């Protein structure tokens, strides 16, 4: 079944690439999302849930959950992009949408892949699609970002591939299926397993935006048009998370699992530290939001590192972060339309220019900082609780210290945008408050999750983290 859908999505992508007008592009994008809706319905209500499709794909709990989120984010991104890029030439416009469709399709494949090699190939495909989106503006800066992105991602993915080869070799597994690997991995040489995990984690870190290859995700978000950044910073990051999470699950029953958790903990703390540090330093709102992603993914890695309830909290954190961060990136896209830039030191007075957008950003600030009623409050509290139980107070002190820096930096910068006197030229004719309203709806959805977590969601995450 999935191959038919892949074929349809690719055909739609190709059709967008040669579409004769913007109207046709819009219609094809609508058709693309309608096919996604049909696909989601067939998985959830059509009896395909938990089934395998076409040998290499399985509609498991984790894949389905993140796919549904991707569907929501992609819909918003496509709609916002139409307004954001309305002044572009037709050629650029359709190329952007075609690449966005291909990127969404590749991410879908990553979510459902049940084979380690297929996950890796599709992650590589996301690099190709993202690179095209990054170079959308055709400026020297975007070219530099694209070059760096391609170079670092390719090197990272090659390193991850070495790890996959080592893992498969150590387990003597020829099918490369996660389920088979899970059975065989317990017999593997611990040293090989450790080396394989390190290599894979290093390689995939460029997608999940965690230490050590986090920089490239930040550059990607900076160079891409803001609505596409919303997809890269959530859908693509989730793909990286899921790829690492599936590897993490494989190691649960091995004797090196404790070591794996320590590695995740170290990576998490380093990512949080880097995020906190650069949130203070950067002078660009898009890079600022990207460092917030690094910081949040650091918290997720800490959750995986401490284990226990921390793993549940980590998955929940990723789910909520998807809604919050996409909302913030879409809000910042509206900001860009008004100020024609993202310079933190120069732009301001947003509260008087676009009240709805300012409320969206201030609300987003509260929610991303995990203040109640943010759902991140629940996940971070659970992770901190488990950290105390597993490691001790010294780590908590370190994490809390870094979180204080994060709180200060985010509050300082978002409040600055809303209230400091503006020093840049304004393009008030470009204000589109409907987009601000629409981005706000994603934030409201996240707040609802903070106040009330549906039973099916809790059950689904519990099943995802039951090893």
């Amino acid at each position, binding site marked *: 079944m999935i191959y038919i859908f892949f074929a349809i999505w690719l055909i739609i992508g190709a059709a967008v690439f040669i579409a004769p007008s913007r109207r046709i592009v819009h219609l094809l994008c609508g058709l693309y999302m309608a096919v996604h809706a049909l696909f989601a319905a067939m998985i959830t209500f059509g009896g395909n849930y938990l089934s395998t499709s076409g040998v290499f794909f399985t509609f498991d709990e984790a894949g389905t959950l993140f796919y549904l989120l991707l569907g929501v984010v992609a819909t918003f991104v496509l709609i916002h992009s139409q307004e954001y890029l309305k002044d572009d030439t037709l050629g650029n416009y359709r190329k952007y949408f075609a690449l966005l469709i291909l990127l969404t399709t590749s991410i879908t494949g990553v979510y459902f892949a049940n084979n380690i*090699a297929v996950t*890796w*190939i599709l992650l*590589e*495909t996301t*690099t*190709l699609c993202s*690179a095209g989106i990054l170079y959308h503006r055709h400026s*020297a*800066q975007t*070219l*530099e*970002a*694209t*070059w*760096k992105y*391609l*170079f670092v991602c*390719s*090197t990272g*993915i*090659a*390193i991850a*591939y*070495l790890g*996959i*080869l*080592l893992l*498969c*070799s*150590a*387990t*003597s597994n*020829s099918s*490369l299926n996660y389920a088979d690997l899970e059975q065989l991995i317990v017999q*593997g*040489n611990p*040293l*090989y397993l450790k*080396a394989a995990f390190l290599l894979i984690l290093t390689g995939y870190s460029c997608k999940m935006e965690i230490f050590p290859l986090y920089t490239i995700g930040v*550059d990607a978000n*900076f*160079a891409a048009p803001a609505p596409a950044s919303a997809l890269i910073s959530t859908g693509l990051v989730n793909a990286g998370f899921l790829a690492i999470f599936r590897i993490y699950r494989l190691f649960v029953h091995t004797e090196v699992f404790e070591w794996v958790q320590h590695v995740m903990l170290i990576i998490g703390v380093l990512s949080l530290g880097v995020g906190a540090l*650069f949130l203070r*330093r*950067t*002078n*660009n709102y898009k*890079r600022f939001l990207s460092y917030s992603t690094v910081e949040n993914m650091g918290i997720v890695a800490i959750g995986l590192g401490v284990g226990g309830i921390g793993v549940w909290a980590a998955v929940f954190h990723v789910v909520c972060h998807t809604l919050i961060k996409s909302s913030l990136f879409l809000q910042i896209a509206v900001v860009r339309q008004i100020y024609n830039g993202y310079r933190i030191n120069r732009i301001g007075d947003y509260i008087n220019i676009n009240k709805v957008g300012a409320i969206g950003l201030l609300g987003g600030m509260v929610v991303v900082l995990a203040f109640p009623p943010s759902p991140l409050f629940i996940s971070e509290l659970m992770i901190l609780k488990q950290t105390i139980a597993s490691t001790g107070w010294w780590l908590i002190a370190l994490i809390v210290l870094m979180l204080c820096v994060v709180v200060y930096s985010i509050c300082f910068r978002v409040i600055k945008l809303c209230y400091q006197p503006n020093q840049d030229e304004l393009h008030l004719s470009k204000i589109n408050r409907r987009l601000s309203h629409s981005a706000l709806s994603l934030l409201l959805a996240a707040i609802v999750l903070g106040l009330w977590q549906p039973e099916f969601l809790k059950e689904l995450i519990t099943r995802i983290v039951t090893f």
Partner: protein
Amino acid sequence: MLLSLIILYVISLVYVAMVERFRSYATIIAFQGWILLGIALLRLHSLNWVELSFVILETLIFKAVIVPAILMRVIKQTKINRINTSGRSQFNSLMLSFAALVASAITTYYVADSSVHMIFFGVALYALLSGLILIVLRSRIFTHMVGFLVIENGVFLFSMAIGVEMPILINAAIMLDILMSVLMLGLFMTKVGSQIHTDSSDSLTHVKD
């Protein structure tokens, strides 16, 4: 025979650390392509003919011919011949490369296990380290590209170690090679050269905090 080819491959990696002319880099990459072709023929002869032909075509046409040709064209276009204009000694780079070789040999010795082809693993590890040394030590973007190609070749070599049992891995590695290298070399040749100064990675500093 297989061992001789692998030793030649290791020598080519040591040589990568010593040279400073771009033409020499392109020649080494081509040489590695031919060695990989030889290893593929010796190692994967039991694959079915379709899969084997795919691997051979990829190593022969792509690794041994097209990639070096593109590198040569870049050299002609940019008119830059050396990694250092001052002609500084490559002593440090060579010492680091030897250290990487020793580290790879020690690691391989300590993790020796029947489940993994140790020589292939050791050489792949050395290739990975050599590529990273090139990328970190050299300031020119061209050398970074060569570093990436060295890593790619190392990974490809290791995939051939287990490729008899797992042909899907070989094909996946080939897909990686073709997709990424073509895109990167294409971008390098058509865009980077004209818009960013290819003579130094110092020019890649506009996207930062």
